[in-house]
């Protein structure tokens, strides 16, 4: 039988239908030239599989690892990092600890069940969000801990400071308002392309976590309700909320008292 180069390649790659694989295996035993061609391709494959193998054993640069574990959050609507208040560290730590837990076991399943791969991915993403590093250049600070928590400005700051939930047509909508375990006022928000959670400290709102808003995709494939807060953000909220979110009256009261 005549076996083309392409078939030899596909044979070595295990990409032929089983019957063709078997036919070539049989032909090989009677055709030394074919056997040699196949062997050459196997050798090439083996050689290539070792290419750059050294990099697999090298320690991963710490900066890269940190990007994944601590995460990275390209800045979009929200920016302007500022030195952060100390207390935020606690909030962040809590949010992070929460985020790193494996997904809560589904009711009815044994708790020792290994979390699925996506759970690990989701967990590291949420942890990343909780840290909220910004891609925008941060002003260098003396202590080197430049601005891990962005301060809300513009429409976002106004909505957080003065807006009531589910109010109006502005570019930013407020979701829930709640008190953090460290006694801060916090609110979730939904902008045009970002949704997140911010807490008030020293008269300013700091964004603790944000994620791309689930914008309606052209094909509608990823379509979700526009007001939905991303689960990653909700996980952060769950990790820091104290008690229940405020009801409308409680929110109005907090607004009226200027977040005292």
């Amino acid at each position, binding site marked *: 039988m005549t076996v083309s*180069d*392409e078939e030899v*390649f*596909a044979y070595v*790659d295990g*990409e032929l239908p089983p019957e063709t694989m078997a036919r070539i295996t049989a032909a090989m035993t009677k055709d030394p030239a074919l056997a040699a061609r196949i062997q*050459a*391709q196997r*050798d*090439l*494959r*083996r*050689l*290539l*599989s*070792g*290419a*750059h*193998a*050294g*990099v*697999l*054993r*090298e320690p*991963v*640069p710490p*900066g*890269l*690892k940190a*990007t*994944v*574990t601590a*995460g*990275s*959050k*390209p800045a979009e609507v929200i920016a302007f990092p500022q030195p952060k208040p100390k207390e935020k560290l606690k909030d962040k730590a809590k949010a992070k600890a929460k985020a790193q837990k494996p997904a809560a076991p589904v009711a009815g399943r044994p708790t020792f069940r290994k979390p699925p*791969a*996506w759970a690990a*991915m*989701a967990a*590291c*993403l949420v942890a*990343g969000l909780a840290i909220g590093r910004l*891609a925008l250049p941060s002003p260098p600070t003396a202590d080197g801990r430049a601005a891990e928590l962005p301060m809300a400005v513009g429409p976002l700051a106004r909505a957080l400071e003065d807006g009531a939930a589910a109010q109006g047509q502005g570019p930013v909508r407020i979701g829930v308002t709640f008190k953090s375990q460290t006694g801060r006022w916090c609110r979730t928000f939904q902008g045009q392309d970002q949704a997140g959670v911010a807490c008030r400290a020293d008269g300013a709102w700091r964004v603790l976590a944000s*994620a*791309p808003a*689930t914008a309606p995709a052209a094909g509608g494939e*990823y379509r979700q309700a526009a007001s939905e807060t*991303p689960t*990653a953000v909700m996980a952060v909220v769950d990790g820091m909320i104290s008690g229940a979110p405020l009801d409308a009256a409680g929110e109005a009261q907090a607004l009226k008292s200027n977040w005292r």
Partner: protein
Amino acid sequence: MLDLLPRLRRMARVLARDPADADDLTQLTVERALARRDQWREGTRQDSWMFRIMRNAWIDESRSRARHGRVLAPPEAGVHAADPAAPSLDGRLALSAVEAALDALPEDQRIAVALVLIEGLSYQEAADSLDIPMGTLTSRLARGRTALQAALIDQGARP
């Protein structure tokens, strides 16, 4: 994603060739993947998804460098340091030769070879990662293999 980092770095090494550029590319890839995590579909391979992001990041990066007049690292600038720990291969010479031969391939062939022959993706997965039809993938792969074979024979390091 942490577990994927070594393989992402290896793929970046194949694409960018220069180790420092490769780590920049890996960094960019991870950042983009984190920003677009909503687009990753449960039940699909995370590695192919991230290779696709890396390949697109590399294209963007190459274009912006070209715009800014930065010269891409020439193939010779890549590190061909043989891996002393590589077991049962035809020795360090052959390994460094295969990396050099790989670096000399045109980018289309290089990435097709890397996805299938280094990373072990199936033809379909590799084609999907590159947004190309399977026939295009197999033809790039075939050309890449033939060129590699020729280069290695030229260098006297018989594969």
